């Protein structure tokens, strides 16, 4: 589902942000990406999102070779991905429901289906009651879950998350990780970049990828 072959990314500095990274995630697999600050975790996720292009090597995501993906096809490709950001990136002037609806609206889902699917996604993260509120009146953990609802409302095959538990306490972090595990059990491929090694050890089985200085130093399967 996610296949990196000898992928390098240089931002033009003296050192590559990623160098010769190779790994493969199967559909429905859940993987944690860890590493020190500056190791290249966000860069790896940005490559999958085509926010950046790889300098060398080949990325094939869901059967699509990103090196050959023209600019105008990027929006359609991104509709098959779900993303959760550390700073949740909710739009402050829109209600929770409108934020969650965004991926549906941009892909032209008929109006009458939008409301139903938004409520289903909010229900899954336990925030149906907050539908009409503005994001800013919610707690950090609640906002993060709104971000997750937005990421999954389109039923993506791949779910990416960059430090999804960076701003919340342990209890909330565990709740959020539980959600990701649920999605992976439903066949979604999940890739989570995180500092939080405790969360990695809580859930088995899973993949654990370790980046250091742009190199993939560890790739372990943690058995159940």
């Amino acid at each position: 589902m996610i296949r990196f072959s000898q992928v390098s990314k240089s931002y033009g500095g003296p050192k590559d942000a990623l160098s010769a990274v190779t790994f493969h995630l199967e559909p429905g697999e859940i993987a944690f990406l860890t590493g020190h600050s500056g190791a290249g975790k966000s860069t790896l996720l940005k490559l999958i999102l085509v926010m950046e292009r790889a300098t060398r090597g080949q990325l094939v995501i869901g059967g699509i070779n990103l090196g050959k993906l023209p600019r105008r096809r990027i929006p359609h490709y991104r509709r098959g991905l779900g993303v959760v950001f550390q700073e949740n990136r909710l739009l402050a002037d829109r209600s929770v429901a409108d934020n969650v609806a965004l991926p549906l609206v941009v892909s032209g889902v008929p109006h009458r289906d939008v409301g139903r699917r938004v409520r289903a996604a909010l229900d899954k993260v336990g925030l149906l009651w907050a539908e009409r509120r503005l994001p800013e009146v919610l707690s950090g953990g609640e906002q993060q879950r709104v971000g997750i609802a937005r990421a999954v409302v389109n039923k993506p095959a791949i779910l990416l998350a960059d430090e999804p538990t960076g701003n919340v306490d342990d209890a909330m972090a565990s709740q959020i990780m539980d959600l990701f595990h649920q999605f992976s059990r439903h066949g979604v491929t999940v890739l989570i970049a995180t500092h939080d090694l405790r969360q990695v050890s809580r859930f088995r089985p899973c993949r654990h990828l370790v980046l250091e200085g742009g190199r993939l130093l560890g790739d372990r399967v943690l058995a159940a």
Partner: protein
Amino acid sequence: MKSLLLRHAQVLVAGLGRLCRHPLSSLLTLGGIGVALAVPLTLYVLVQNLSSVFGDFGDTPRMSIYVDRDAGERAAGLLADRLRDDTQVDRVTLIPRDQGLAQLFDLDALAPLRGRLVENPLPDVLEVMPIAGLDEGGYRELAARLARMDGVGDVQIDLAWVARLRAVTELVAVVVQVFWVLLLGGVAMVISNSVRLSLVTAREEIEVISLVGGSEAFIRRPFLYSGTLQGVIGALVAVVVAMGVHVLVAPALSRLMEAYLGMSTVSFASASTLANVVVASGSLGWLASWITVSRYLRQVLPR
């Protein structure tokens, strides 16, 4: 199809909402566009009024025929009748020599001479308005033909006046065109700037929409609507401003035209002209925002 229309309608409403959410800056933008476009519109109305008058009889040189003073008392009347039958003559007005003299004494400078003259030195005069549509040579030939008629002393034709008038209207028309180009360019810049400001404010929104799979067309759409809307509403403001100016200026213009040309109907621009202004301004708004948004998206969504 219906859902597409619905989506466009939603975006249009969102565009209006955007305008209403920043009332002061929108007002300044619309006011700027309105005032900028009111200038050429007002000039245009002025030129149109003048040239419609010239079109009526400005291209036709009037001729003055001085009746031979030796031809006798009734010669002028007979000549006038013969001229009225001429196919190249439209109107003839007889100014008898006594009336001519009286008019002369009405001028302040000559008033002291009233009653001092032993004999009226003036001939009878026929003001001849030829038919319209001849060229300069045609009018000269006509004047020459009239000069050969019995009882005609002299014929004066003022072709220079016509040429002068025509040169002035042409100059003003060119100036108006230049103003249109300059100020429509200004409108494009004003709209581009305001679209740019709203793009910068919406940067986070743009990035998020792009990351969840919004196409550039989708991102561009509300900005295109608001740019077009600004062009259209700005042009409507311009029409209102120009109408206001017209109401203020029309009486004076009407008096001027009455005095010089004997015409006093002053009209405003036609509905189709106004529609053209609105359409042109709206199209420019669309174009300016399209370019601005595309350039901005290339900056913030690089790859």
